């Protein structure tokens, strides 16, 4: 019975691993942290993985593939690689093409970082500024609407006070229903 349970758990974990990896290809633990469905099960998941050599091996292998891909991606190359490749490719062209203006340009071209990479460093500060502006706008609207509410509530209270003291007729005269006329009076 316990064997069956263990297999089911293994299958579920395998499914989650594939899911997390196919979506983000981050280390599996990071995938777990992001997936709210997994958070509730984190305890038994950890317990299971500590006791299940198959899942441990699977996790280790995923980690290795991830590490290898990251290592390949981060492997630096010389800046003039594109230039060299272009020069070599142009070298096999016929003489007239080799001497062309475009060929000359290609021989000296260097890879340019993408726009996203170039402005990527400013992304977080831009997001922070945008968030600040949004908060300020929300605060401003919030403050104005609360001031309006405060004013109307205050008027009601004062009208009630006057109505109880000097009577409804006089109170209506002092505080007419039309707010515009009230503001004119003020």
């Amino acid at each position, binding site marked *: 019975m316990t064997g069956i349970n263990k297999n089911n758990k293994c299958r579920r974990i395998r499914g989650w691993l594939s899911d997390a990896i196919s979506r983000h290809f981050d280390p599996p633990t990071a995938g777990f942290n992001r997936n709210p469905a997994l958070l509730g099960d984190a305890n038994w998941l950890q317990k299971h993985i500590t006791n299940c050599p198959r899942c441990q091996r699977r996790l280790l292998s995923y980690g290795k593939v991830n590490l290898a891909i990251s290592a390949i*991606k981060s492997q630096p*190359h010389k800046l003039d690689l594109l230039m060299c490749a272009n020069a070599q490719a142009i070298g096999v062209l016929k003489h007239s093409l080799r001497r062309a203006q475009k060929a000359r340009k290609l021989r000296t071209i260097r890879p340019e970082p993408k726009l996203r990479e170039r402005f990527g460093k400013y992304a977080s500060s831009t997001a922070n500024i945008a968030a600040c502006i949004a908060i300020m706008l929300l605060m401003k609207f919030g403050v104005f609407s609360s001031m309006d509410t405060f004013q109307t509530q205050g008027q009601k209270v004062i009208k009630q006070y006057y109505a109880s003291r000097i009577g409804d007729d006089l109170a209506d005269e002092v505080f007419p229903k039309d707010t515009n006329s009230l503001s004119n009076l003020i």
Partner: protein
Amino acid sequence: MLWRILGNEQDVCDAYQNTFLQLAHYEGGQRPEHVKAYIFRTANNVAISMLRRRIAERKRMSTAIVTGKNVTSPAKELDSKYLQESLRCFISQLPAHLRNVITLRDLAELSYAQIGRILGISAATARVYRCKALQILTMWMGKEEEK
């Protein structure tokens, strides 16, 4: 992408040259319908062929690899070069449809939509292929470690 597949400057230049030569000789100088897709696919194929040739050559003169296999496993894990080479080797052994997706997605960093356009499949299919490719790579890496 070529650099990431091959990891060797001379090979990258050769693969680049071969790719553009193939483009130049495409059906008697005609222009392919999707030039970008054609270049990506050709570059990928050329690079994988070169990688396979390199692996076969290295196997033939296998003294270096034999000494590499004698290294203890924790040392292997730390050796990122060894990891990269084994991953490249496994990628070259993947079936073509899975290999294309993994190289275009992880090495060329294209989006699934772009990969779909290049390979003539849907973005969802590309995603499934990549997932499958990763599973296979994981399995192979695991098996290699057991050895």
